[in-house]
C-alpha cells in the first residue's frame, strides 16, 4: 500500500488542474472533470474494507520534518475508513448534483471546484493523519475552504457575514485545539495520536489533563456546531446548496465528532469528559430541534436539524466513553452507545444529504425556500416528494428507514446509561431519556414540516418567482441513490456492522473491545421494549403537535431578542472591533519616525536590560589581532561618510553618503575574506541606491522643519542608545561563548553536500528551509508593492 498515503493529496493536486479545465473547455461543465476524483477515491477506499475489517490498519509514514518529530503519517483504521467513505461517497454525489445545480454560464465554476477539492483533500487529511500538527493543519484548511465556499456568492452581504462567522468561530476553536494538542504533546513527548493513546495512563494524572481536554473539546464543539457555538451553521446556509449538503451536513461538521471519537481512548473514563460531551450533546440535541421547528426557511430548518442530530451523535459518544470507567457491565452497555453513534453518523449523512438535495431542487425550480410561499408541489414534483418523505421519515426515526434503527439504539443506550452507577449518574439518571424524548418530539415535528408543508396544501403560483419545470435527472439521481441506501441500510444493517462498525468501534475503544469483541446484531424488532413505546409516544405527540402547530407557534415569539446567541455574537464582534480600532489609532500615527522609535525603544530596553541582568558585558581586547593601518583608514572613512549623511542638505547627498557607507562595508568583507557577503552586499547596495533614486521624486524637500528641543533630544537619546548598545553587543559577543560554535558542522560541506562553497551550501541545502521562506516573503513583499502602487494608479 505504498501509494495509498497519497490519496489525501490527489484532490489537492488535482485542484491545480481545475482552472486549466475551466479556462480551456468552457463548453463542458467543469464538474465533469472533477467527478472522477471522488468516485475513484471512493472505489479505492471500498477496496480497503476487507483488509481493515480484519483489524489490520494501514500505516504509512513519510518523514517531513523528522528532527521536530513532525511526520506525515497516514493511519487508516475503521474510524478513518467510515469518514473517508462518507467524504468521498457523498462528495461524488454532490459533485454530480452541482453539475446540474450550478449553471456553467453564470457561475465561477473554476473557483467552486478548486475550493471543493481543497476541502475534500483537507477533510481526508484530517481523518487520516496520525500526527496532531498535521491534523491541525488540515483542520484549519477545512475551515478556510469552508469559508471560501460559504462566501462563494460573495456579492451577497449575508454570504459574507455567514462566512466570516463560520471562520471566526471554527478558527477560534481550532486555536484552542492546537493549544490542547501542544499540552498533550508536551506531556507525552510525541505528536502521534497512537503513541498518545499508548501513554494515556500517563496523561490522566497530570494537572493539565482537564485544560487540555477542554481545549480539544472546544475545537470539536466549534467545528461540530455544538451549543452554544451552533450559531455559525444556520448562517453558513448562504452557501450553494450542494455545499450545504456536503460540508454542513455530511462532512465538515463531522470533523468535531471524529476528533471526539479519536480522543476517546485518551480522555474516556473521566467524569468531566463524560458530562461535558454527553451534556453538551444533549443540550444541543434539544436546542437544535426546538429551534428548527420555528424556521420558515427550508435550509435554515435543515441547518438546525443538523445541529440537533450532531448533538445526538456527540451525546452518544459521551455516553460511550463510560466504557473506560471500568470493566464489566458499563463497558458492554457503552459499546451500544458507540455503535449507535457510528450508525447514526452514516445514517445522518445519507438522509441529510438527500434532504438538502431535495431542498436544492425545490429552491432551483420554484425560486424560493420560504415555507410560507411554498405549497402543493406534490403534483408537480412527485419524485422529489417521495425523496423528501424517505429522507425526513428516516430522520424522524420511522421504519422502514435506517434512522429508525439508530434512533432505537440511541434510546437503548440512554436507558442503559440511566441504570449505571458511575459519575453521579444515579442522581441525574432520568434526565437523559426525558430530554432526548422531548427533543425527539420536536425532531418529529420538523421532519413532518419538511415532508409535507412544501408539498401539500394549496399551490400559490403568484408567490413564486418561477414557473415550475421538471427537475433534471442529474439533480434527482444523487438523492435517489441516497434514498436507496436509506432503505438498504434498514434491511441489511448487520452487513455494515460486520465490515464497518466493528473495526470503527475497536478503534474508538481499543482496550475495551479486545476483551469482548462482539456486538449484538442490530434488529428492527426487539419486542415490546421501552424504546418502542418511546417511539410510539413520539409519533403520537409529535403528530398532534404538528397538526396544532399554528396554535402554539407563538411560543417562539416570546423569547426576548437579546437572549439569542446571535445577538451576543454580533455585539461581541462589534465591541472587539471598536476596541481594537481605538487601540490601533492610539499608536498607529502614520509617521515612520514614530514606528521606528517604538522599535528602537523596545530594542534598547529589552537588550540593554538583558545585558544588565545577565551582567554579560565583557571587553577583552587581548585576544584581538592588531589593527592594521588600512583597516583604521576604512573606519575613518566610514565615520566620515556617516557624518556626511547627517550633515547633508539635500536628499541626494544623503543617499550617496549611505551608498559610500555600504561600499566601505564591502571593503571590510573583502578584508575579512567573506567574498560571498561582499558580492551580495555590492549588488544589494547598488540596487537599493537605484531604488532610492527612483523614490526621490516622491519625497518632499529635505527641510529641517522641526526644531523643537524635545524632538531633538528624543532623537539624540534613541540614536545614542542604539549606537552604544550595538557597540556593546559587538564587543561582548566576542567574550561570551555560551555554546559550541556550529561552524564545525558546516566545514564538512564537501562531504555532506558536495559543495566547496560553504555559504552557498548553507543557503540551498543545510538551511534550505530558511531560504525558501525568505524568497517567499520577498516575493510577497514584491507583490505587495506592485498591488499598492497599481491600486494607487487606478484610483488617481
Amino acid at each position, binding site marked *: 500500500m505504498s501509494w495509498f498515503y497519497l490519496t489525501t493529496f490527489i484532490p489537492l493536486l488535482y485542484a491545480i488542474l481545475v482552472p486549466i479545465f475551466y479556462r480551456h473547455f468552457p463548453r463542458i461543465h467543469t464538474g465533469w472533470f472533477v467527478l472522477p476524483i471522488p468516485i475513484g477515491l471512493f472505489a479505492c477506499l471500498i477496496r480497503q474494507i476487507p483488509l481493515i475489517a480484519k483489524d489490520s490498519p494501514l500505516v504509512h509514514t513519510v*518523514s517531513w520534518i523528522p528532527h521536530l518529530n513532525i511526520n506525515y503519517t497516514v493511519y487508516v483504521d475503521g474510524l478513518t475508513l467510515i469518514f473517508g467513505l462518507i467524504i468521498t461517497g457523498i462528495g461524488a454525489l454532490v459533485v454530480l448534483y452541482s453539475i446540474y445545480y450550478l449553471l456553467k454560464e453564470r457561475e465561477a465554476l473554476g473557483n467552486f471546484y478548486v475550493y471543493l477539492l481543497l476541502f475534500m483533500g483537507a477533510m481526508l487529511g484530517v481523518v487520516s493523519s496520525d500526527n496532531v500538527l498535521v491534523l491541525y493543519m488540515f483542520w484549519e484548511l477545512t475551515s478556510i475552504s469552508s469559508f471560501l465556499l460559504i462566501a462563494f456568492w460573495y456579492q451577497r452581504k449575508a454570504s459574507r457575514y455567514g462566512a466570516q462567522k463560520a471562520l471566526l468561530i471554527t478558527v477560534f476553536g481550532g486555536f484552542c485545539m492546537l493549544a490542547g494538542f501542544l499540552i498533550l504533546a508536551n506531556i507525552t513527548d510525541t505528536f502521534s495520536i497512537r503513541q498518545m493513546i499508548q501513554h494515556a495512563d500517563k496523561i490522566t494524572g497530570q494537572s493539565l489533563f482537564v485544560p487540555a481536554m477542554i481545549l480539544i473539546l472546544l475545537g470539536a464543539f466549534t467545528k461540530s456546531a455544538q451549543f452554544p457555538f451552533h450559531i455559525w451553521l444556520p448562517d453558513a446556509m448562504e452557501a450553494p446548496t450542494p455545499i450545504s449538503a456536503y460540508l454542513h451536513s455530511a462532512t465538515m461538521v463531522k470533523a468535531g465528532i471524529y476528533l471526539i471519537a479519536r480522543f476517546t481512548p485518551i480522555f474516556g473514563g473521566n467524569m468531566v469528559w463524560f458530562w461535558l460531551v454527553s451534556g453538551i450533546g444533549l443540550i444541543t440535541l434539544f436546542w437544535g430541534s426546538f429551534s428548527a421547528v420555528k424556521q420558515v426557511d427550508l435550509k435554515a430548518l435543515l441547518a438546525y436539524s443538523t445541529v440537533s442530530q450532531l448533538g445526538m451523535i456527540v451525546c452518544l459518544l459521551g455516553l460511550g466513553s463510560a466504557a473506560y470507567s471500568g470493566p464489566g457491565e458499563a463497558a458492554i452497555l457503552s459499546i451500544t452507545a458507540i455503535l449507535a453513534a457510528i450508525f447514526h453518523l452514516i445514517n445522518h449523512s445519507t438522509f441529510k444529504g438527500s434532504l438538502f438535495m431535495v431542498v436544492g431542487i425545490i429552491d432551483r425550480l420554484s425560486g424560493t425556500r420560504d415555507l410560507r410561499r411554498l405549497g402543493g408541489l406534490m403534483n408537480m414534483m412527485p419524485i422529489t416528494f417521495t425523496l423528501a418523505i424517505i429522507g425526513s421519515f428516516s430522520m424522524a426515526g420511522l421504519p422502514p428507514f435506517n434512522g429508525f434503527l439508530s434512533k432505537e439504539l440511541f434510546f437503548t443506550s440512554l436507558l442503559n446509561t440511566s441504570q449505571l452507577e458511575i459519575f453521579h449518574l444515579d442522581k441525574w439518571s432520568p434526565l437523559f431519556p426525558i430530554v432526548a424524548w422531548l427533543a425527539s418530539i420536536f425532531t418529529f415535528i420538523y421532519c413532518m414540516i419538511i415532508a409535507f408543508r412544501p408539498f401539500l396544501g394549496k399551490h400559490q403560483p403568484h408567490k413564486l418567482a418561477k414557473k415550475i419545470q421538471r427537475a433534471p435527472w442529474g439533480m434527482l439521481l444523487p438523492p435517489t441513490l441516497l434514498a436507496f441506501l436509506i432503505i438498504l441500510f434498514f434491511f441489511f444493517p448487520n452487513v455494515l456492522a460486520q465490515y464497518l462498525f466493528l473495526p470503527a468501534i475497536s478503534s474508538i475503544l481499543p482496550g475495551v473491545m479486545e476483551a469482548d469483541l462482539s456486538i449484538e446484531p442490530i434488529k428492527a424488532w426487539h419486542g415490546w421494549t421501552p424504546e418502542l413505546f418511546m417511539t410510539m409516544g413520539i409519533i403520537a405527540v409529535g403528530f398532534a403537535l404538528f397538526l396544532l402547530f399554528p396554535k402554539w407557534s407563538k411560543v417562539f415569539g416570546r423569547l426576548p431578542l437579546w437572549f439569542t446567541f446571535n445577538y451576543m455574537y454580533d455585539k461581541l464582534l462589534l465591541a472587539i472591533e471598536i476596541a481594537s480600532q481605538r487601540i490601533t489609532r492610539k499608536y498607529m500615527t502614520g509617521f515612520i519616525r514614530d514606528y521606528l522609535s517604538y522599535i528602537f525603544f523596545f530594542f534598547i530596553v529589552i537588550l540593554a536590560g538583558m545585558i544588565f541582568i545577565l551582567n554579560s558585558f565583557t571587553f577583552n581586547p587581548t585576544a584581538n589581532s592588531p589593527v592594521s593601518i588600512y583597516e583604521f583608514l576604512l573606519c575613518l572613512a566610514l565615520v566620515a561618510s556617516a557624518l556626511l549623511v547627517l550633515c547633508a542638505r539635500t536628499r541626494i547627498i544623503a543617499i550617496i553618503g549611505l551608498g559610500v557607507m555600504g561600499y566601505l562595508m564591502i571593503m571590510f568583507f573583502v578584508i575579512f575574506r567573506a567574498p560571498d557577503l561582499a558580492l551580495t552586499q555590492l549588488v544589494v547596495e547598488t540596487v537599493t541606491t537605484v*531604488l532610492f533614486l527612483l523614490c526621490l521624486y516622491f519625497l518632499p524637500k529635505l527641510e529641517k522643519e522641526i526644531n523643537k528641543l524635545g524632538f531633538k533630544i528624543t532623537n539624540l537619546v534613541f540614536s545614542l542608545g542604539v549606537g552604544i548598545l550595538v557597540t556593546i553587543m559587538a564587543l561582548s559577543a566576542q567574550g561570551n561563548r555560551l555554546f559550541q560554535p556550529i561552524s564545525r558542522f558546516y566545514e564538512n560541506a564537501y562531504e555532506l553536500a558536495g559543495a566547496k562553497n560553504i555559504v552557498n551550501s548553507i543557503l540551498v541545502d543545510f538551511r534550505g528551509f530558511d531560504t525558501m521562506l525568505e524568497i517567499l516573503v520577498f*516575493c510577497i513583499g514584491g507583490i505587495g508593492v506592485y498591488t499598492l502602487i497599481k491600486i494607487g494608479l487606478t484610483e488617481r
Partner: protein
Amino acid sequence: MGLNNDVILQTVSKVAFFIILAFATHLFIGGHHNPGGGFVGGLVVASALTLLILAFDLKSLEEVSKINYQTLGIAGVIIAVGTGMSSLIFHEPFLNQTFGIINLPILGETEYVTAIVFDTGVALAVLGTALSIITTISEDVCKWRQ
C-alpha cells in the same frame, strides 16, 4: 523617465549588459564551489536590467522583452517549493538535496547537484521580485511626471 539621452551611458550599457549577464551566469553556476549562487546571480541580472532601464527607459526595455516579472518571481518560488516537495517522492524529508557524479559524453566526469534546481528557483524569485518592485515604482514615476 524617458528623458535620458546620454549617448555614452547608452553605448556603454549596451556592451556592459552582456558582460554583466555573463558574469551573473558565472556566479550562478559557479556558486556551488566558488563565491556566488542563486541569490547573487539573480540580483546581478536584476541590476543589469536596471542599468538598461536607467540608460534607456522602461518602455524600451518592455519593447525588447515582454517578461512579466511578477510571474517570474512566483514561478521561482514555485520551483523552490516544488523541489522541496519532489524529495518527498523519494521518501526523503522535505527539501532534502543530493549530489553525485555522472559521466557526460563531452564534458566527462561532471558533478550534479539537485540543489541547483532549488537555486534556480531562488534566482528567479529574486530577479522577478526585485525587478517587479523597480519597474512598478519607475512606472509610477513616469505617470507622475506626465
